[in-house]
Every structure is written in structure tokens, then in C-alpha cells.
């Protein structure tokens, strides 16, 4: 069960090697979390991530999960919920792709959409139903500022996150009053493996900062969290910039 500050005792991370996911798990383990499930494609990286969390004193297990294999979501995630209540699900998987290459390879672009959006819809619904049955829990969805307004430089990734963001908002409204809390997290540029080698955007942040924002959001039972918080103001201004101007902005 979550405590009065929204801190979970058990955590399921979808995308078990995600840097933000693991930073969040580390942070929550220092608070209350004792049971962690890392869901991801079986790999040495997943096992070493699990071993890293075990060192912090948590009971960590891994479960085979592939965002693209939507037919298997029900079975693989159902197994996790059958073992006991999950207080928090962190939907952390996602791929960034390479915009300039993907524009010429529709198949690769479609895979990004399938991973970030279709896979999240399927696994999100499976988790939402399980959380509703147990009558409590938080579903934390990692969206992105890129989904707030599509940019020339990364609209394939951005559009997939825009779909995910809209899905998570609607799901949160559908689950209102069921004891299940859905929180959409919109980080800006996060310094991580995913963005290694890319030019850093203004207001760049770190996986640890996102983890802290998630912990605070859980305490406040927030529905939307921006990381850093200043992005909320920046994006609400950018959203209203006319297309002709926005297109020319160096963002």
C-alpha cells in the first residue's frame, strides 16, 4: 500500500532498463519500496539493472516484456499482478529514433509509433484494469514535452508521445474515483543514453531530477508533472506561437 505521502511499497517498471525508471526505483527504494518488478526484453542489461537495485535492499524480480508484442501483454503483466498488489506502475519504455533517417524509412518510423504509442496503450490498459481491481495504485506515464507541440526536428517521436499523452490523460479521467491515480510526467531534454550525442536543449534535466519530480507528484497526487517545472510556463507560451513563426524557431 502507498503511505500518506503516496510512496509505494511495490513498483512495476515497464521498460526495466530505462534510466529514468531506474533512477525513480532507486529513489523510492530509499523511502518505502521493497518489491520491484523490472519488465523488459530479457538481456544482460536488464539483469544487471535488477542486481543494482537488489544491492539497495529491495526484492527485485524481472519479467519478460516487449512493448511491440502486444498480444503477450495480458499474460506477462497478469503474472506480475497475480503475485500481489502493485502500488505503482511506471510506464517508462520508449524509443527516440533518428528523425532524419526515419523520415526516409517509414518502417522504422512506424516501429517508434508502435513502441511508444501502441505498446503503451496495450500495456497501459492491462495495468489500469489490474489496478482498478485492487482498488488502489498509481500509473505513472512518462510522456515528453516533445508531445506538447510537434517540432520539425523530431515530429515522429513527438507525435508518438502526443498520442501517449492524450491516451494517459483520458485514462486518468476514466479512472477518476476508482482509487487509481494516473500521472502524466512531461520531462524536457533528459541527459541520458537515449539523448547521448544530441545537442542539449535549454532547461535540460537529469533522470534523478525526474525521479524527484515523480516522488513529489505522488505526494501531491498530481495529474501532470513537468520537469523542470519551468517548462510548464515555457510550453504554454510556445503552444500559442503561430505556425509560421514556430516553424522558424531554432528549437
Amino acid at each position, binding site marked *: *500500500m502507498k*503511505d*500518506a505521502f*503516496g510512496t509505494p511499497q511495490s513498483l512495476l517498471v515497464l521498460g526495466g532498463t530505462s534510466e529514468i525508471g531506474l533512477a525513480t526505483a532507486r529513489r523510492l527504494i530509499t523511502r518505502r519500496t521493497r518489491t520491484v518488478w523490472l519488465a523488459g526484453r530479457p538481456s544482460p542489461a536488464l539483469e544487471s539493472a535488477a542486481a543494482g537495485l537488489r544491492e539497495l535492499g529491495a526484492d527485485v524480480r524481472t519479467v519478460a516484456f516487449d512493448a511491440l508484442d502486444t498480444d503477450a501483454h495480458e499474460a506477462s503483466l497478469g503474472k506480475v499482478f497475480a503475485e500481489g498488489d502493485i502500488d505503482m506502475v511506471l510506464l517508462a519504455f520508449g524509443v527516440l529514433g533518428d528523425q532524419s533517417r526515419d523520415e526516409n524509412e517509414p518502417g522504422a518510423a512506424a516501429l517508434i509509433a508502435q513502441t511508444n504509442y501502441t505498446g503503451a496503450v496495450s500495456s497501459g490498459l492491462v495495468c489500469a*484494469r489490474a489496478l*482498478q481491481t485492487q*482498488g488502489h495504485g498509481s500509473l505513472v506515464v512518462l510522456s515528453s514535452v516533445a508531445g506538447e507541440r510537434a517540432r520539425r526536428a523530431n515530429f515522429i517521436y513527438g507525435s508518438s508521445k502526443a498520442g501517449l499523452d492524450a491516451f494517459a490523460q483520458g485514462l486518468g479521467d476514466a479512472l477518476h474515483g*476508482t*482509487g487509481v491515480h494516473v500521472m502524466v510526467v512531461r520531462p524536457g531534454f533528459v541527459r541520458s543514453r537515449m539523448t547521448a550525442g544530441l545537442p542539449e536543449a535549454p532547461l535540460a534535466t537529469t533522470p534523478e531530477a525526474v525521479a524527484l519530480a515523480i516522488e513529489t507528484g505522488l505526494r501531491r497526487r498530481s495529474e501532470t508533472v513537468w520537469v523542470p517545472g519551468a517548462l510548464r510556463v515555457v510550453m504554454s507560451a510556445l503552444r500559442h506561437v503561430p505556425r509560421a513563426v514556430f516553424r522558424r524557431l531554432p528549437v
Partner: protein
Amino acid sequence: MFLTKRPHKDDTVDRMPADTVPVTGWGRTAPTAARLVRPRSYEETLAAVRECGARGGIARGLGRAYGDAAQNAGGAVFDMTGLDRVHAIDADGGTVLCDAGVSLHRLMEVLLPLGWFVPVTPGTRYVTVGGAIGADIHGKNHHGSGSFARHVLSFELLTADGGIRMVHRGTPLFDATAGGMGLTGVILTATVRLQPVETSLMSVDTERATDLDDLMARLTATDHRYRYSVAWIDLLARGASMGRSVLTRGDHAPLEALPGRARRAPLEFRPGRLPAAPAFVPEGLLGRTTVGLFNEFWYRRAPRARTGELQRISTFFHPLDGVPHWNRVYGRGGFVQYQFAVGHGEEDALRRIVHLISQHRCPSFLAVLKRFGEGDPGWLSFPVPGWTLALDIPANLPGLGGFLDGLDEEVAAAGGRVYLAKDSRLRPELLAGMYPRLADFRALRAELDPAGVFTSDLSRRLAL
């Protein structure tokens, strides 16, 4: 799929009202959804327990437990306030037999005109008899009279097997249920021994204590002279005035203490009520500044020493009951009440904790300190002979979780404990050290309720 199921219109005639709703404790933190069932008879209670499903059920009274004790995510919560009959009063011997859903407020209305008072009352009259036993509540008279269950002669308990047992004091099931947070079964009725009174007024002595040591010295020296005793403590005061307090102690006023006019209706019970707190209160209204000012005012307002002041029962025992829904003043984020007890001889630990709280600047305007008397036989009963401190803190105070974890460590190291009826955040690992009879409690539950029919968010969180 996500629609909450509401009872069909035609169902309401012969079926119990049941609805899936978010449920919280009095502190309004950590809401979880449960099917709220309101049985109106023992048969309906039995049916509710039989039909509660895989995630079990838990009895709930008036919802005054601050944390998650009367919540059950995904399962059933039995609202017992529908069972509200007072069955029999022995006006000569001073006992009452009533349903578990009867509130102490109702008992006062019924009993005071007959010259009897409840044996123990907490800071609110709006608790049920069942809840009073389940949390084994204490009041300002604990140093002399002990906790509520000490005055309970017997109760009827609906257990997980569907049987109804008459449970008498001195038996293991009685001691497991007193303070057992509803996890042994559903209490249906109870027989409670009462306290005789001549009037419905209190004769109250008020004095100020300039700091924590002064307070403890006064309580130790003269508490035995008073039936009721409590101190309001200013936890924002620092330095030399750390722990400055206002002591209010007293007893039921004898008839001859009343002025002429009041003597005509000495047992009248008329608690006043103010308008309810608004449904929406902005967060952070009770910050350090406002609470600091309030505490300063409260301390200065109190007389340095005053004796024999006549107060109404509601003024002396239940000042907050005057404002319905006062728990809303903390805003949407809710609040946490932290109450712990440490034994005699652990005054240094108490001093250290009060120091930590005042250094942390917790905006707490409802902190009370009390000297406990002998402990009570309930296995998970909270009071231990020594000191208890209770404080309210807004839950959205940054860093509060870690800070309270630190206090837990101090309490545990001093051999103390936190109160489960108030708790919403204790680390489960610390529980066994705080409650030495926890293993017995778990063993009895495993035998009495192997399938875990009686389950609450509290029991899940702390693995009770």
C-alpha cells in the same frame, strides 16, 4: 470497463446499499476505492461478511481514524453506523448494552440525563463504540482509568467463519480485539461500564508551563489529583521556551459547585455547533506563520493559573467537534497525525523528539502531551506507562516523510511505539519492535481467519 458499478434503482428496496467509492481516513490522505456496504441488522452484517469477496472487508465506524485503518482497497468496507440501537441501560449498576455503531455522542445524549457518563472519551464524541474497542482509545483520564477496553465487560464478535461469539474480558480473543483494528472480526454489540456524574459540567483548572521540563514536572507532581489531564503544547516555540504549554485538568463538577440557575438542570447536555468548514480550503493556509501566530495567541490567552472554572463537556473534551469537517482546513492534501508514546525514564528521548520537531518548524497547532498510566491488556493496545505526544502536520510539507521516519527511529530506540489508529505511514519493519505481542496477534488471526477475510489497507501496509 472503468465505470463504477452503482446499485440498480430496483435493488435499493430489499438489498443493502452498496457503492464503490473512494474512502479515506480522517486525515484525507491515500484514498482507495472500496465497496461501501451499510448493514442495518446482524443478518445483513453476516451477509456482507459472507459476500465480501477475495479482497475481504473491514468494519468502519465514523471514520475518525486518521490513517488507513478503516479502508480496504478493492474490497468491502462495512459502514457500521446503521447498527445504532442502545439496547439496555442499567441505571443502578451503571452499564450499557448497545450496538457497535452507536456513537459516544449518542451515548452521552442518552446517559447524561440519567447521571452517567462514558468511561473514556477521546478528543471527539463522534466515534463509535465498535471503533473505540477496535482502536482501544484513550482519553484525558488514562492516567487513572486506562483505555476504553478496560471498561468493556464483553462484546459480541462476528468472526470470519460466520459465527457470532460472546467475548468476555480476560480471554485471548478479547485482548486481540481490543486495539486489534477490526482485524479479528466485526463487533456487533458491547456491554460497557459507565462513570457516575452529578452534573454535565466540568470543573477545570488551567495553568501555563513555561517549557517542557516545567510541564513534565507539573504533570508528574500533581496529575494524580485530577481525573482528567492534558497539556496543549506549542511545538513551534524554540530555545528557552521550547515545549511551553497550557495544562487543563479537571473533574466532573459536583452539584454544589454549580451556580443556582444551573442547578435546576444539572445534567443538561447541549453541545454547540459552528458552521462546517468549507469543502474547499486552499493548501498552505496552515503554514508556519499562521500556526505560529495562533500558538502565540493560544498560549498568551490562557491564564497563568485559574482553578474551578466551569466548562461544558464539549468545551473541555471535544473543542474541535464544534466545527463539523474541521479536517478540511488542511486542504486537498490532507494531514498526518503523528502520535507516539515512550515509557517513564525515557524523558530524554521525549525532549530530543520535541527539540527535533521544533527545529524542523512543523506547523502543528493541535499538539497535545499527556502522561499515561498503567498499560492495557490489549495486544496491540497503544498506551504504555509514560508519555504520549500527538501532533497534526499538513501532509504536503516537503520532506515530512523522511522527517517522521527519523522520529520513528528515535521512538523505537527508546522502546516506544506509534499509535496505529493515527498511523498512515509507519515503516512495517519497526512494528514488531514497538508491539511485542504482534506475533501472538498474527498467530491468532492466522487461526481465526486463515483466508484473511478481515483485511484493511493498514493491515496490508504493515503486514499485520
